[in-house]
């Protein structure tokens, strides 16, 4: 059997690792935009090869797959999906594990995801509003902030994935800082509009959502379009530095296990989260008339108004969350992929370890994420015996293997270390012991988050979860979960959630 992978990050290295462990002994081929040292080695050891090419170009991918005569392709990152790679492969009769272009809209357009949720009145959604331009956004907020209190505390996002433009959180709670917040908000609207002007494929440029708080977690699933199969919950940590501070990154590390939930999420919340994701997949299939087969994930948060809530969707596995899940997966990954391809996931008995907790930590060069040009091109040295001796696994990410076998940093997240143990803190400690085995020989700095997987951070998540759970349970017990009830002087009782439903459906349906 011949399998081909697409993508060159740590997530893809982990996929290749898992394929290499399969009893089917597949020959492993790969296309990536960087010469990832880990994937390169696995391909070589399994009668295959790693080719460097543009992974968003259907021609390149189809030509490689046909040339190598592969039986199946698995797509790692989201961009190939956005560019229709799975569609192009299937048109050629090559089986592909990955969301098609139309279905990957749930990740590509944050505004379309919210619309899908509200149009179908699915649970686990946040109040939202889209705007065509910055002026419209600031005018709307200024005009309505008095009668729609949720507009005071918002998250501003580019309505579509857009080169490095991040999420901004504006909490306008202190009256004495109001002008300050307003000024920042408007300046950010302007800069978003400027960067989004290049995209003519969507009308909405700016998305605002109500600001929610609570512990976050990812639920990654396999789906064949009929069944959505949940995997163990994983919590990723997006801030660059300890104590959840610093700029937003692709994810600095994640925890999972030792069973299907996390220490601070209940089984009931797991089940609800899975239902929410099923609802989105179903609604997206209905809307597009296409079948979703591949991976899908919800970046979830427990919130006070909704309980489990979707923050964003993945049309793929998360990076680094994929590594946690794959480390816990006991079923042969080829069996999972074949069940997806043959649309018989409901019959598959998928198993995960219930004895081990998994901690994953990303090591990144200084300069990431805000000054990547400075973070690029530094020579890497790894003391592999130390990594092995501490029971850690290393997955290469943004790294470039040179002709002379030297590895250089690529400017983004360099590599990921994974360790397993009976509980999270000892697994975290193994990685802490190992990070010094990775160095840049030119003296440029590396960093990672030492707090991921520690008792201290777990206690913080736990306390956050308990506080928010008390709030949403209160609403649930009174049958008002999902409402946003407020009383305003001279206006009376309002529910922003009903207002939004009415706006989208007309008064009769809401």
């Amino acid at each position, binding site marked *: 059997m011949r399998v081909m992978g697409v993508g060159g990050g740590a997530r893809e290295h982990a996929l290749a690792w898992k394929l290499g462990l399969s009893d089917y002994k597949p020959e492993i081929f790969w296309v990536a935009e960087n010469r990832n040292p880990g994937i390169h080695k696995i391909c070589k050891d399994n009668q295959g090869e790693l080719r460097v090419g543009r992974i968003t170009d259907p021609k390149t991918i189809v030509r490689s797959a046909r040339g190598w005569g592969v039986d199946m392709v698995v797509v790692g990152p989201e961009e190939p999906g956005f560019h229709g790679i799975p569609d192009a492969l299937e048109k050629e009769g090559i089986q592909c594990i990955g969301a098609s272009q139309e279905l990957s809209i749930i990740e590509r357009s944050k505004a379309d995801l919210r619309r899908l949720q509200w149009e179908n009145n699915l649970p686990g959604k946040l109040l939202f509003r889209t705007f065509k331009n910055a002026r419209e956004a600031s005018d709307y907020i200024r005009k309505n902030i008095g009668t729609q209190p949720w507009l005071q505390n918002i998250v501003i996002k580019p309505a579509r994935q857009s080169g*490095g*433009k*991040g*999420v*901004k*959180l504006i*909490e306008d*709670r*202190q009256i*004495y*800082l109001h002008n*300050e917040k307003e*000024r*920042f908000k408007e*300046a*950010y609207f302007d*800069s978003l509009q400027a960067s989004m002007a290049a995209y003519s494929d969507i009308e909405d440029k700016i998305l605002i959502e109500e600001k929610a708080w609570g512990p976050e977690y990812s639920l990654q699933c396999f789906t064949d379009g009929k069944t959505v199969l949940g995997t163990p919950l994983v919590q990723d940590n*997006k*801030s*660059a*530095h*300890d*104590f*959840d*501070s*610093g*700029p*937003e990154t692709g994810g600095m590390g994640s925890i999972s296990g030792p069973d299907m939930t996390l220490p601070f999420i209940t089984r009931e919340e797991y089940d609800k989260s899975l239902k929410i994701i099923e609802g989105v997949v179903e609604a997206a299939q209905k809307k597009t008339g296409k079948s979703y087969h591949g991976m899908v994930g919800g970046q979830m948060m427990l919130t006070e108004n909704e309980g489990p809530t979707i923050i964003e969707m993945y049309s793929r596995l998360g990076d680094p969350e994929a590594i946690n899940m794959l480390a816990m997966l006991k079923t042969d990954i080829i069996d999972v992929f074949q069940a997806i391809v043959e649309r018989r996931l409901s019959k598959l008995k998928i198993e995960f370890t219930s004895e081990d907790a998994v901690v994953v930590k990303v090591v990144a060069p*200084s*300069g*990431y994420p*805000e*000054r990547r040009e*400075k973070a690029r091109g530094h020579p890497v040295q790894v003391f592999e015996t130390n990594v092995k001796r501490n029971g850690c696994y290393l997955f290469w990410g943004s790294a470039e293997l040179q002709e002379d076998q030297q590895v250089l940093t690529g400017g983004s997240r360099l590599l990921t270390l994974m360790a397993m143990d009976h509980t999270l803190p000892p697994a975290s400690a193994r990685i802490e012991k190992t990070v010094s085995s990775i160095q840049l020989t030119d*003296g440029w*700095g590396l*960093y990672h988050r030492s707090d991921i997987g520690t008792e*201290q951070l777990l206690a913080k998540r736990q306390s956050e979860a308990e506080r928010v759970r008390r709030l949403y349970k209160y609403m649930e017990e009174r049958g008002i979960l999902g409402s946003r009830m407020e009383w305003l002087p001279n206006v009376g009782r309002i529910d922003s959630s009903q207002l939004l439903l009415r706006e989208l459906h007309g008064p009769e349906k809401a």
Partner: protein
Amino acid sequence: MTGLVGFYSFGEGRENWDASHFIHYGLSALQGRGQESVSLATIGPGSTLHTLGGKGGVEELFSSNKTSIPKGFIGIGQTSSYADDYLVHVKAPYELVLALDGKTDLHENRGEATKLFARQLSQLLHSEKESLKATSMLMNKIGGGYSFVALTHKQELVTGRNPLGVKPLETGSVGFDIAAVASETCALDVMGIDHTGPVETGEIIMFTPEDIRGNTPTTDPGNFCSYEYVYLARLDSKVNTLPVATVRNSIGRELAKAHAVKADVVIGVPETALSIANGYSQESGLPQEPGFMRTGENIRAALVPTQKERLIGVQLKLNPVKSAFEAKDIVLVDDSVVRGNTLRNTVLNLKRSGAQSVHVRIGSPALVSPCPYGVEIPPKDELIAGNLNEKELASTVGADSISFMTIEELQHAIGLPRQNLCMRCFEKGGTTK
């Protein structure tokens, strides 16, 4: 004593933040730590440090300098209980401004000691490639008890708490955009910043345009200032992860258990002792009544420099609510006694207003030694409890009885091991541990 604030922003659009607004309100929340001099510095974009300082409180500085408030998206600030105590500005070899709470042991004089520390930091940031490691070594080398925050011309914010950990320092953040440090968590709350945890003993954190780096904190459990819990810190703060309000309540309860007295009503001296009186009332079952109304600004009597200002401060502060204690036996609860004049005024006020008897209960041991780390506890000669026994003291202030907590009782109320608490000011010629 001083209150410190540091504000750091990241990410796209950060030039739109105006750090001075955050520092303004952060410092306002820390004015309990001093309001004699206030100063701030900001930077960004570019490499110019903008500074401003002035006598008096935070509002005074900000309202009288409306057009010259430093602009920038990164900044630090300090409010100080010392006269003319501003951020130290070192121009070369590595330009920086520094704010410090506590005292380093580089000089007898606190101000000089702070200047020397700032100069050494500048020297080292200039010459050492591994600035984090070097700063960490510097802090391990220089003794005393201090926390500091510095801002450099390269848009770096360096903050640390020396291994003794006697001075508090807390961190916070908002989303992906803002990180902050402050002497107390109340300042973070007021700035709308989520508290993330204390800076550990011996910990240095460096915020730079490239990253945030921290050294590994020392394993030293620290020797935390117990007076922070009794009086210095604000009620809505957490100090070393303990909520001040909870500790003050236990102090009151402990006081009621060990120093019970027959009385009709419990009255606390505003502001600090109100929560101690509350604990006393809950434990003893005696009702707590509001005994005083304050007029004018909240002047913290212990921190006001001259005798005259202190007396005016007290009189303005406390107008008795006569009906609360007319013809009653009163337990008067206060946090501490420094020179005794505040207490004397208060007791006499109560009696003049009709109180039958006044039993004074103090929520801390007698202050008998000055603070080596810069808290304005006056020299031994000026400490009334260091010079008089309880009986002499009672008659001097006009009380029917007076008693202080013991060191053991205070330690028990705080709930930390004895070796983790600095109680030097309560010990006659005592040591730190």
